[in-house]
Structure formats: C-alpha cells, structure tokens
C-alpha cells in the first residue's frame, strides 16, 4: 500500500511512530496530484513548496521530541472559498481570481497550528453556487468513477482530491448540500456539522445563515480526527456555538442497540432513482439486523424546503456578494462613472449562475416582495425546523439518500437550473434546520457509480453520525472505496479536458 492510499488515521499512526516522515507523506501525495490532477482537475492552486516546507518543519519538531497534534504532518486540501493568508483564494470566480487574503480563516489557522501541510486550494462552483463544480469560472472537475460525469458540487474539488488519494483529508463547505452531495457522487464521507459548530470566520460567505465548513474524508474516523481539530467556539464568529467539544474519536465503536432510526419517506420528488431508494432501504435493514429500531418518518414540510432554500440562500447571497464592486480588491473594470464601474465589474466578474442568484435574491428582498418571498421562506424554515424537532422526539437518527441519483453527465443539467437545483433536494432541509448531517457511501449503482446515504442527527450529535457511518464501513469488505482510474492508462496523455 502506498502512502497516498492510506487513511489519515493510518498516516497519523505511522508519523507518530516515526515509521515515515511528513516530507515522505507529502511527497507521495504531491506525486499523486501530478499524476491524477491534470485529468480530474481538483485543484485551482497547488502549493507543493509550502506543503513540503511545513512538512519539514513538523519533521524537525518531531525529531526534537516535541509533543505534536495527532494530525501533525498529515497533509490536507482546502476548498478555495476558505481564506488562506498570503495564498490566493478565488472562490472559483473571475472576480477574485487574483485576491490574496491578508488573514487565515479560523479553521486554516487551526490546521497550521496543528502542523498539517496544505497541499492546495480545491475547485468549486463559483462562490459555492452549484451542484456539479461546472460553475467554476476556471474549469470543471471530473468524477473519478467516470470522467464523463460531474463529481457533484460545490465542494467537487475537495471530494475528488480525497476520493483519488490526492489528499487524505479535505475541508469543504456545505450550504445546501455542497459537501454531502458530491461526497455521495464520489464515494467518500462528508460531514456537515451542526450550524455554528465550526467557525465560519474566513469562509467566504455565500448564504451566512446556512454556510458551514465541514470535513471530507475516506472514513468516518478520519472525519472525527479532523473535527477534533476544527470544531469549537470562535470569538470571531458570533454565530459559533459555545458548547464544549467532545473527543469525536472516542466511543465510535459499533453498538446500535436501542438506536431509533427514522427512515425518511420522501414526498413527491421527480427523478428519484429507484436504485437509490433500494440502497437506502438496504441500509435500514442492516441497521435493524444489528439492533437498531427502524421506523418510517415523514417530514411533511420538507416538500417546501427547496423553494424556501432557493429564496433564502440567494437573498443572503445578493447581499453578501455586494462587496465585490472593484473598489478595494479583486477584479475591477473601467467605467465612466462609479455606477458604470460597479456594473461592468460585476457584469464581467461574475458567472451566469452567480448573477442568476443575485437577481433572484435582490428580487426576493425588494420592497413589496419581501413579505411574499423572503419572509414567507423564513416562516417555512421555522416550520421545517419544527418538523425535525418532532421527528427527533421519536428517533435518534434519520436515514435517507444523500442524492436522488448517482453522478450525472457533464453538461447534462447546465442548461436547466431547476434540474440542477433538484439534485440538492435530499440535503437542503437539514441545512435549513441547522442539523448535523453525514454522507457515507451506500453501495453502488448498477452503472458502477457510487451511491450515498445521508444520516441526520440532533444538533451537536456529530458523534452519533460518525459512529453510524463507521458501522456502515464495517459492513463492507473493502474500505475505503477507491475508483480504479483506468481511464488514466486507457487515454494516457490524450485525455481531453
């Protein structure tokens, strides 16, 4: 087994026992990136020199016998909407193509403090708006299980990096499914923590009341390792939660006795692949066989979730993205007047989907429409939260699908925004309710593509999610899942990007 094929936990063990150096580990991943990334294009910016430098520093500290964080020396990839000091943070947008933040996001500062070398910044849908990573202003990222398909989005780059061994861990962000949906489309584990559990300071805002940084990993245990590092109260984020952070690694051993699981009965959702439903039902049976009590649950108001989400998120986005006006940083177009400069900067700097959402949001917040759209959507959001509270009186955990279908083809939904929005339908209500939610691999589709399960728990119950995720891993012979990447050899250097 090569280093890049190992889990973060295994790398951590070997680093701590000094079987390998961080420099060796980082080099292995960098080589893997050189080999794979030209075809899949998960990274917007690669930082091999920086990664090797911090690996070297960690190695010498370890040589000196310093006590280090368990993840010290384990490299990581960071979604390119998370601010990194002196390192370009583009949000996959022309408007921030050359923006270099003068500060680290709180989570990035935590990575650095722990001594995790950063391999680079990963691709996403522009400003995290999208479900396929095709909305990147630079290039799309491809699904490693079938390069003709999308990896999902918006955290497509982070997910593909982890799925293919270009990074053992990655940070993503999830507003309405942006970690969970691509995780399920690429066969990895993605955790959206409780809203406020991980600081948003430094995460470039898309929809502030929904945005949450989370983990991408090949196993639930790796997710727990990373959560131990990034979760917690941050005085720089007023919406971060003050509650104590548990040791997410502890007590992940299986034992599902008396676990009450609610199997989500979806309302009318078009385009739900029957094999997805089958995979979810199978997962429910597995839980039942191991002692869990499974019942059905319906969240009636979730039918309105998508509509509410696509009013609230664009409304907040229309405000959050106002600052890109060309005055202080980022792309700036000329204009005869300040208004002309503003409108040309924004007209040329933003891509189509971003502009669409800014328009929707601006409309929804306008005088005369506010009550009918934004306010109504906020009321629906409250009712959705109540649906969850009610469900969690009967159940400890909700089980459903992380995506209605396996990965779809590149270009398949780019012309039809509504179809694209529907691919988040499974993820959105958890986001609106602020609940923690985990996507774990749930077997394969007949096409050979991975399918994902989604587990949702009460606020702060990330551990229960990770524990159940780990249970599913243990039911499988081979873990982590690795795509074969046959196409690399078949197509060689001729593969058309």
């Amino acid at each position, binding site marked *: 087994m090569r280093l890049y094929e190992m889990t973060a936990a295994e790398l951590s063990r070997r680093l701590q026992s000094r079987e390998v150096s961080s420099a060796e580990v980082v080099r292995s991943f960098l080589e893997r990136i050189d080999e794979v990334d030209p075809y899949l294009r998960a990274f917007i910016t690669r930082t091999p020199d920086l990664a090797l430098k911090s690996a070297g520093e960690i190695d010498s500290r370890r040589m000196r016998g310093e006590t280090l964080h368990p993840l010290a020396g384990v490299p990581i990839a960071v979604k390119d909407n998370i601010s990194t000091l002196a390192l370009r943070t583009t949000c996959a947008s022309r408007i921030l193509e050359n*923006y270099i933040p003068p500060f680290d996001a709180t989570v990035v500062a935590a990575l650095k403090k722990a001594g995790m070398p950063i391999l680079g910044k990963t691709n996403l849908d522009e400003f995290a708006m999208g479900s396929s990573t095709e909305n990147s202003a630079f290039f799309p990222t491809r699904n490693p299980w079938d390069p003709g398909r999308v990896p999902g989005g918006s955290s497509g780059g982070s997910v593909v990096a982890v799925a293919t061994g270009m990074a053992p861990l990655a940070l993503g962000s999830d507003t309405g499914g942006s970690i969970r949906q691509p995780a399920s489309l690429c066969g990895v584990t993605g955790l959206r923590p409780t809203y406020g559990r991980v600081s948003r300071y430094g995460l470039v805002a898309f929809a502030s009341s929904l945005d949450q940084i989370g983990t991408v990993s090949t196993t639930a245990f790796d997710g727990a390792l990373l959560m131990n590092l990034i979760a917690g109260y941050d005085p720089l984020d007023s*919406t971060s939660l003050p509650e104590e952070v548990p040791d997410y690694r502890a007590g992940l051993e299986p034992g599902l006795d008396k676990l009450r699981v609610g199997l989500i009965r979806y309302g009318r959702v078009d385009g739900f692949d029957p094999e997805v439903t089958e995979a979810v039902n199978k997962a429910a049976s597995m839980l039942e066989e191991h002692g869990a009590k499974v019942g059905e649950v319906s969240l009636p108001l979730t039918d309105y979730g998508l509509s509410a989400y696509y009013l609230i998120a664009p409304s907040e986005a229309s405000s959050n993205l106002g600052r890109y006006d060309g005055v202080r940083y980022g792309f700036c177009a000329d204009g005869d007047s300040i208004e002309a400069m503003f409108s040309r900067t924004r007209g040329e700097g933003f891509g189509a989907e971003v502009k669409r959402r800014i328009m929707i949001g601006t409309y929804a917040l*306008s005088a005369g429409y506010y009550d009918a759209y934004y306010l109504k959507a906020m009321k629906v959001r409250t009712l959705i939260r109540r649906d969850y509270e009610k469900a969690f009186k009967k159940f400890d955990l909700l089980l459903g699908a992380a995506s209605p279908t396996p990965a779809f083809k590149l270009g398949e939904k780019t012309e039809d925004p509504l179809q694209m929005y529907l691919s988040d339908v499974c993820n959105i209500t958890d986001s609106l309710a602020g609940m923690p939610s985990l996507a774990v691999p749930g077997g394969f589709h007949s096409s050979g593509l991975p399918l994902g399960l989604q587990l949702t728990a009460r606020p702060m119950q990330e551990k229960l999610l990770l524990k159940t995720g780990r249970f599913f891993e243990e039911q499988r012979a081979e873990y982590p899942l690795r795509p074969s990447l046959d196409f690399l050899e078949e197509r060689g250097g001729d593969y058309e990007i």
Partner: protein
Amino acid sequence: MKYEVIIGLEIHLELLTASKLFCGCSTAFGREPNTNCCPVCLGLPGSLPVFNRRAIELAVTAALALNSEIRLWSRFDRKNYFYPDLPKAYQVSQYDQPLARGGYLEVDVAVGKRRINLERVHLEEEAGKLVHAGHSIIGSGYSLVDYNRAGIPLLEIVTAPEMHSGREARLFLEDLRTVLLYAGVSDCKMEEGSLRCDANISLRPEGSSILGTKAEVKNMNSFRSVELALDYEVQRQEKVLSGGGSVVQETCHWDEENKQTITLRGKEGSSDYRYFPEPDLLPLVLENTFVEDLGRSLPELPSERRERLREQYGLEKEEAFLLTANRELGDFFEKAAKAYPVYDNLFNWVQGDLLYQLRENDKKVEEIDPNLLAGLLQLLDEGSINRPVAKELLAEMVQSGADPKEMVRERGLERISGRDRLLPLVEQVIAENPEAVENYRQGKNKALAFLVGKVMAATKGRADPAELNRLLKEKI
C-alpha cells in the same frame, strides 16, 4: 397664505468607544488614511462582525439620557446599497426592531420650554469617508476612500416632525448635544463629523393637518448652518407654494459657500435598501439588570444640573444655564465654590474677568486650577490686595498658571495700609503738589482724586484707598 413649517431631524452620533463596533480597530480621529483598518471593517471576504460591548453600553446610556424606552430584544439588519465608502455594500443597522423607541428632550425655546419627542434610537455602523478631488461631491474628477471611519459605532436618533423653524431645530440640536456630552457617550463635534444632522422639512397651510411634501436636507456641518439651511429651505418652499407650484420630494445638499440648498437627487433616485435581518449576528438581548445598572450610573444631566446649581448656589436661571451649557465652566465654578463659598461674587468673576481672560489668551477653562481663583478672591476679600491688582493677577494666572498668593508674596503686592506707612507718602504728595492742594482747599473735589492717584501711582496701586482718602483730608 401663512404656512406652518414642519421639521424632523435625523441625528447621527459617533459613540466614544476606543475600538470600532465590530472589530478591535482604533476609532482615533485624524490618523493617516486607511491605517485603522482590518479585514472586518474593510469587509474582506470571510470576515465576520462581533459586538463591541462598550458600544452597546454607550448606546443604552444615550437612550436612557433621552428618556427613550430600551427594548431588551432588538435586532440588527442589513441596509443594502452600493457606494464606494461602504465596504460590504451593506450597512449593519437596525430597522424594525431598534434598540430604543420614543423618548423626548425638553428644549428651551423663545416661548418657554417645549418637549420635542423622539421616534427611535438605534445603533449602526459608520461608513468610510470619500475624499473628493476638487471642492465638493459635485463635479469631482475622482475620489479617494478612507476607511478609518468605517465601522465606528454610530447612534441614530430620529425626532418626531415637531419643530417649526430653523431656530428651533438649532436649539434642539444644541440641547441634544449638551445632554449627550453630559451622558459621556460622544464628543459631539460637528466639525469633525462625530455629530451630524439631516433634516426633513415641509410646509403646510396653517391649520391643515396633512403633511406637505418634504425635502431632505443634508450636509449641514455646524449648528449655524442647520439654522441657515432650514431657513433657506422654508423661504424656497414658501416661494414655490405661494407661486401656485408644488414642492417636489427631493434630497438636497446645503452649499455652505453660497448659502443655498442644491438638489442632489429626486424621489425616483431614492433607494430600496432591501433590509433583512443580519445573519452574521444574533439578536441583541439585554438583561434587565444591565439596563438598570447603566441607568443608575447615568451621570447628572443638564436639566438636573441647572436645577441643582440654582438651589445650591442661589444662581439665577440664566446664570445656571451658562454654567450648564458650558459644562467645563460649570465644573470650574463648582470646584472653586468649594474653596470660596461667596457664590455670587465667584460667579461674577467667572462670567466676567475669567471668561474674558480665557478668550484673550486662547485658553480652555480646563487648563485653569479653580483653587487659584478661589485663593485670589480670598486675598481680595481679606483686603490683602486691591481690586486692580487682583485683575492683573488673574490675567497672569490665566496666562502662566502662576499662583496669585505666591505672586503677591514674591513681588510684595500686598496692600499698603496703616497710618505709619501711609503718612510719609501723603506728606510727600502734599509737598510736591501745592497747586492741587490749594485747589482742594478751594472746594474742588477733583483735586483730591488727583492726589490719591499720585499716591497710587507711587505705590503701584497698592495703597489702601479708604485710609488714603482719610489721611489726605486730615492733612490738607
């Protein structure tokens, strides 16, 4: 037709915090442009706001001083608009759930006291500042932006439309300033922009109960210009209305140089700010005890002080008003009064010679030690020095801060009195001025004053005038 003028004011006030509303940057005025800035107040991507507790304390204190009702649950909203001085393209403000509602201020106007009611008091963040190339916003080639000011806590106070002239608006504003200075929440400097005022003004036929179309007047940078601008607007609107025309709703700019208002934009240019609750902040929930504690520690306010000054020192209404309006002068008076409890005399000296000397020497009353004046007046009352000497000593005291008592001792300025010391001087003057002596003997009283003057000149004004008179009369 006679018209009734209706004016409502919107006042913005920079609160006296050391750091900004949502970050730790300094609020110091006059620094090098764009040096008091950080990712938060520059609105860099990914930055988030965190409340400054001190700003909330000061806002609550101000609202309490204005008799406003504090709302224990309030909320912050985003006011969205594009402007280069607004780093996030939204201002964090309070919209439908402000910090405080209602309130009032008792204002002394020509016809006695009037209560001007307030609509609301809320907290928001300050924008940056555009520095226009050229003279003003109109016809500027380009502008530079200074974000030092961006994010300073700003209190917005909105009055009811209850003022009826430029003069009333000015009086209200001056009183408001005094109250807020006493409350210690702001330095209220209109010239530096820490106190700003916009006005809505409309006219209606006397007796009508329907409000006329209003104009919003901005850019009034002093109390005087508030009065001038509003008086100008009254005349302008009056002319329009009596000419049969109608006032157009607009925002106008007070042009200080040409003393007129200029239309900045019409109603069609008014913005839809798309307010919505700020998702990066939690609602502001105040504990009752927090508000009560601030209420208890509220400093004495001007109206209370005026009453107390009148009672405690037996001052007249106008006297108490002077010492209240000029807070530092009042403080000076009260400190001096402790050491020199002859209040009416003290007030006369403070109001007269002291203020005169402060003006002459361009000094602030805070620079003067009140005990020195008290000591000086004691010397005078004891008869140790003469009045002209006292006046000279006061001037020197203001200039250099020297102690009058020491000056008297060092320079030997005490009054010369007693027969033994004065008699030789009297005899010498009589001997040297036979003509004046003769004149006095013939009944010319003026001649005596001449002789007194001679002795005074010889003693540099130190001779005891009463005794001198007596001795001269006796000897002639």
